[in-house]
């Protein structure tokens, strides 16, 4: 397997400026390094303010790192080269409806990335949009729909379609499952697993649901106060966590589900 993403000493500082004086340096992310292979899923877990969303934003190119490099297939990603970045790394957000433009139809929104990144003619673009809609379990008819006409699950599907339309190598999802109903959430998880299988996409999930992480992740990265606490395969971290925080995060939910666990196993 080849390493699709390598991150070296990625760092992010903010300056909290008050008045005339040069501001106070706030460290959102201390230097971290990790790598991800093709078709793998990485889950980033941590408490609020631990810097997990910062990593996601830095990788997706929404923010410029203060220091450190990101390599995609051995090639360095320039923080200001948005074209290179957006063809290979795409993002899905938490609130599907708010991340879609309410004023344009689904088809037009999906057309935009093709318009800016390919030199295809109109027919080929339309065909590709419809094919992508089918891939995420929607119909060709949804081309002319507006976001508010769709249910929450379908909206999230449109967001996924927008993320995969350029056939990227990495998709970053920031809390993409939180706002969905349980039965819809399972459908979306299935969809993501299918897409990963068919298209060999690497996923990076930022989430705090231990159950979903255990189900879909190959590797887990645990963050605390902008520092990397533990990084390893899902199996290793669940069976043999080295840090107290890892144990808490991965078992917090199952702990208060003691009852359900024991009764199911009985």
């Amino acid at each position, binding site marked *: 397997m080849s390493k699709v993403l390598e991150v070296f000493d990625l760092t992010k500082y903010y300056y909290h400026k008050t008045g005339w004086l040069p501001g106070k340096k706030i460290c959102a992310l201390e230097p971290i390094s990790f790598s991800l292979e093709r078709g793998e899923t990485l889950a980033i877990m941590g*408490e*609020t303010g631990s810097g997990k969303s910062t990593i996601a934003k830095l990788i997706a190119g929404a923010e410029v790192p203060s220091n450190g490099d990101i390599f995609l297939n051995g090639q360095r990603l320039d923080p200001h080269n948005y074209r290179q970045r957006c063809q290979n790394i795409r993002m899905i957000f938490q609130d599907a409806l708010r991340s879609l433009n309410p004023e344009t139809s689904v088809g037009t929104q999906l057309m935009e990335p093709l318009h800016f990144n390919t030199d295809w003619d109109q027919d080929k673009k339309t065909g590709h949009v419809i094919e992508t809609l089918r891939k995420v379990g929607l119909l060709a008819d949804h081309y002319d729909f507006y976001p508010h006409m769709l*249910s*929450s*699950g*379908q909206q999230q599907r449109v967001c996924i379609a927008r993320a995969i339309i350029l056939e990227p190598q990495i998709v970053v999802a920031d809390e993409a499952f939180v706002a969905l*109903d*349980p*039965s*819809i*959430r*399972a*459908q979306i*998880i*299935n969809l993501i*697993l*299918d897409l990963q299988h068919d298209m060999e996409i690497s996923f990076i999930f930022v989430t*705090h649901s*231990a*159950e*979903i992480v*255990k*189900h*879909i992740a190959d590797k887990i990265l645990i963050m605390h106060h902008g520092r990397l606490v533990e990084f390893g395969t*899902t199996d290793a971290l669940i069976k043999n966590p080295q840090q107290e925080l890892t144990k*808490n*995060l991965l078992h*917090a*939910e199952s*702990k*208060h*589900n*003691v*009852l*359900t*666990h024991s*009764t*199911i*196993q*009985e």
Partner: protein
Amino acid sequence: MNILDIRNLSIEIETSGGPVRVIDKLSLQLAEGEIHTLIGESGSGKSLLAKAILGFINPRWKITADRLWWRQYDLLALSRAQRRQVTGRDMAMIFQNPGSYLDPNTTVGEQLRESVPARDLPGTILTRRKQVQKRAEELMHRVGIKDHDAIMGSYPFELSDGVAQKVSIAMAIAHRPKLLIADEPTTAMEPSMRAQIYRLLAKLSAGDGMSILMITQDLTAVIPESQRISLVYCGQLMETGPTEDVMREPVQPYTGAMLSTSLFNSDTEPKSRLPTLSGAIPTLQHMPIGCRLGPRCPNARRACIEQPPLRSYKKHQFACHYPLIEVDSHE
């Protein structure tokens, strides 16, 4: 002894396209000191039910019920003023986004002091201020906030979600209600904070004999202290019963699907496809007739266009023509 007894409650909302039945013949019983978890996805009418119990009623809603009793009062027969009095004395509610339900313009302390009822306070009007302050501090300690001075002096935007929820619990229990309705109290919280809030609610219920109606979205939020659970789908009761029984032996296909999609089972193969219900939750204007799960149900057959009656199996009650387990039809 049931303190809250709801039988066949229906709520119809007048819309431009004719009346829509949002809650359809829902029954719910709550015993004293019990924690009852009500589980429903969005659009299931679970928050509407809470509003109907508390009496936050919009004049456009038509509420009909065979019984809507709170202790010895028939809530539907009471006048507005009487009902207000009963609700104000016996019930309280906490919400999903505590930060946005607190008044942003006043300090937490002021809001908390305002919710302390005068009937609790001994002494004369001259010592009132001091006593209110003392009682507010006690409430803060009860919900697990130790540095009460700092928190009471701050404004809601300065608090984290967890602390804000604790404050709103403190305000809710200030007048010692008999029923606390918690409407998705921890949905937006992280797991460690969530566990704290649940532990606090369980403790309050055990200590004071307060009944709690916990409203949540999925089965992962059911706490071990919850004695009974009810699953609601699109305003219809799917299954109800003691938590353990329902979890161990789901009868209704909906319960079965919710259990398997909730990823409890440690034996689910990682990366395997999850069993799930197909389709989406219907919108209010397009409710299917009969059993509303019908179009998404794996067991649905012709008879499902009629709403199934509530039947019992062991300690559960469920509504389904074709349950997952063979149930004697004479029961």
